[in-house]
């Protein structure tokens, strides 16, 4: 109230640099988000910018001095769940997560400003642990999507909740693990829960009130285009989850997201048809949520291949002409190049071993190889149900013009279908049992040295691999069951031709983005299940990565 005496004590602050941390600056406007690449000292969105390239213009760390990286600080979180969060950095404050909690840290020292704790509703159902891949920011508000399907707005300065919207029914299996995406005055989220027979959707909420503005059903209902691709009432529990963040093209006001697999996962007999828009990309008008185009990578999929991999936007040269490209490495083992303005299929090429596809028609519809349907006796498919890649964010360098992906090579699954009735809140995968009694889809065949994870550099013009860096040769994928355990990191590249990557063995490496040569390596011990980021404070560049339950932050000596 008036005459607040303490305000008179405001002094010229922060003179003693060694005693203080950075401070927050101006609010993060939509214009700042649009031009996030132009302020590389910050990391303002899940993908670093709206095109999800994870390419930074920072240049202090180079191939020549990467060997001089050393640990500056570390922050362990109090969660044993897979630590997949991409932090945000805003003018010296780093926002990360601890399961579904949000933590604001001094990005220079790792000291805690505030913690917002979110207790998951006890009857919530979620498949894969308390995982959150990050938060979003607009103005002075942080947006959090939780595993019990709350979308919560927090004051970025204090962590105080501003509003809390229930997006979907958590006890029915609806959950949220993807970082929200803010576009203009809307915050966009999708729901996970494909293994629980949900009917997926993307929805936009007003950033000030939390009220829903539009909703796009990834499983169209009666009267909606695409519903005819579902037999009977199968659309009601058709899956189509969204659990990774999409991208945004401001030139066309289009936001593009990947959609998860159809439900039930392993038995398509109960859902005859193509099952739109599962295992697809959907391009939506950001203002209205209206569908502009879609591309379905796997019609009527029976192999659990969520297509939620980040759709990366890059302006490329295609057959000698400039093209607004969309680069997409899919869990099904194929690398796609599309025209992001129309969805036109330009290229589809396998980047790992596969045996299900023998080609594409002119519109990009895959032609299935013989005998590649899920069966009661089991059908062996490459890649496995965890895919040729997964949630791991890819990267693209406008300098090298290469697309980088963390690939899982050599995995295969024996897909066995079973019968299962839908019961709300219960698993609805319709997974059968093999003759050996296993209900696990992953199958071990072949030599261990044929199964590994690797960073691969792909040429968008041809899909050819230019180089690879093997992260963990000789370790069988079968030794590590479950999505979290199968982890490998996403990627980060920079304007100095560096590429940072991590592996499930805990190795964190800096590579030469031009040729894959290892420049620096450190063993952090725990699995690395997220993409590293980079930022700068007071002219000093940092690189942050999660390993195990700890965030490690590196800088030059």
């Amino acid at each position, binding site marked *: *109230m*008036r*005459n*607040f*005496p*303490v*305000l008179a*004590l*405001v*002094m*010229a*602050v*922060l*003179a*003693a640099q*060694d*005693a*203080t*941390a950075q*401070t*927050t600056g101006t609010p993060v406007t939509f214009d700042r988000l649009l031009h996030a690449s132009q302020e590389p000292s910050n990391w303002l969105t899940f993908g670093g910018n709206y095109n999800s390239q994870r390419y930074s213009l920072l240049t202090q760390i180079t191939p020549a001095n990467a060997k001089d990286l050393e640990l500056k600080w570390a922050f362990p979180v109090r969660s044993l769940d897979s630590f997949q969060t991409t932090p945000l950095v805003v003018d*010296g*404050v780093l926002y990360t997560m601890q399961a579904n909690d949000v933590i*604001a840290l*001094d990005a*220079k*020292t790792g*000291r*805690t*400003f*505030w*913690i*917002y*704790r*979110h*207790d998951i509703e006890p009857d919530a159902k979620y498949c894969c642990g308390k995982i959150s891949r990050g938060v979003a920011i607009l103005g*002075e*508000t942080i947006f959090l999507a939780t595993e019990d399907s709350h979308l919560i707005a927090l*004051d970025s*300065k*204090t*962590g*105080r*909740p*501003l*509003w*809390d*919207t*229930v997006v979907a029914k958590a006890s029915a299996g609806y959950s949220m693990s993807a970082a929200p995406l803010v576009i203009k005055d809307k915050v966009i989220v999708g729901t996970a829960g494909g293994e629980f027979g949900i009917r997926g959707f993307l929805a936009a909420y007003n950033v*000030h*009130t*939390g*009220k829903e503005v539009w909703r796009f059903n990834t499983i169209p209902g009666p009267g909606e285009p695409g519903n005819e691709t579902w037999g009977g009432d199968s659309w009601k529990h058709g899956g189509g989850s969204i659990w990774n963040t999409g991208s945004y093209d401001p030139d066309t006001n289009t936001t593009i997201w990947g959609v998860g697999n159809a439900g039930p996962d392993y038995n398509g007999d109960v859902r005859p048809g193509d099952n739109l828009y599962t295992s697809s990309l959907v391009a939506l008008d950001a203002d209205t949520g209206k569908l502009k185009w879609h591309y379905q990578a796997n019609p009527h999929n029976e192999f659990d291949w969520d297509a939620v991999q980040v759709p990366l936007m890059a302006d490329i040269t295609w057959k000698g002409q400039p093209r607004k490209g969309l680069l997409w490495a899919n869990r099904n083992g194929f690398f796609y190049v599309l025209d992001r303005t129309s969805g036109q299929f330009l290229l589809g090429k396998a980047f790992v071993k596969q045996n299900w596809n023998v080609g594409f028609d002119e519109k990009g519809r895959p032609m299935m190889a013989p005998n590649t349907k899920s069966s009661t006796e089991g059908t062996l498919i490459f890649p496995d149900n965890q895919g040729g890649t997964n949630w791991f964010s890819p990267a693209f360098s406008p300098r090298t013009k290469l697309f980088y992906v963390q690939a899982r090579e050599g995995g295969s699954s024996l897909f066995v279908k079973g019968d299962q009735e839908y019961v709300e809140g219960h698993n609805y995968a319709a997974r059968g049992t093999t003759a050996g009694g296993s209900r696990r889809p992953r199958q071990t065949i072949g030599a261990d040295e044929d199964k590994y994870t690797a960073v691969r550099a792909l040429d968008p013009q041809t899909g050819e691999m230019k180089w690879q860096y093997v992260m963990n040769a000789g370790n069988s994928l079968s030794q590590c069951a479950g999505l979290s355990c199968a982890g490998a990191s996403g990627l980060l590249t920079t304007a100095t031709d560096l590429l940072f990557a991590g592996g499930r063995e805990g190795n964190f490496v800096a590579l030469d983005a031009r040729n894959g040569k290892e420049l620096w390596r450190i063993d952090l011990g725990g699995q690395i299940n997220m993409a590293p980021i980079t930022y700068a404070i007071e002219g000093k560049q940092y690189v942050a990565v999660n390993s195990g339950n700890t965030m490690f932050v590196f800088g030059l000596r």
Partner: protein
Amino acid sequence: MMPFRNLLNTIVITGVVACNLATAQTQPPPGNSERGGTLFAGKAACTTCHRVKEQGSRLGLDLTRIGDSRQPAELRQAILDPPSQLQPQNRMYRVVTKDGATITGKLLNQGTASLQMLDTNERLVSFQKSGLREHNFIDSPPMPSFRSTLSAAEVEDLVAFLSQLKGVSQ
């Protein structure tokens, strides 16, 4: 949309939440809440220190939901005799660096070696305690009494306004 769940379970920030949930409001206060809202942002200048629905300063107690946790009598008392209602964690904090700079604000967090604040410019700042000459709460109440600056009717209008603050419209 649903109301906030128990804020006591979700906020762990030092000094942000002051709760008195034991008693429920029984009778609406007699003042005019609309006039009270005008006073809040105008003559009384409450937003200099307090925040309601994303407007105003973060240094004082956020009053967005104050109507849920305070009875009119308590609000009236806080306006007329602020020290009687001041919770210890809502005091202002002051640090003086070894080179003489003084920074005041809200203490957010502290450990053995460092402390973190929201300063009066609403910047998040962090200090090594070894770099400070002194650091402590300011005992004098940050809020003045409005006993002599607002009329009795105006106080009631302000109480009526504060009493109906129960979060974002649902």
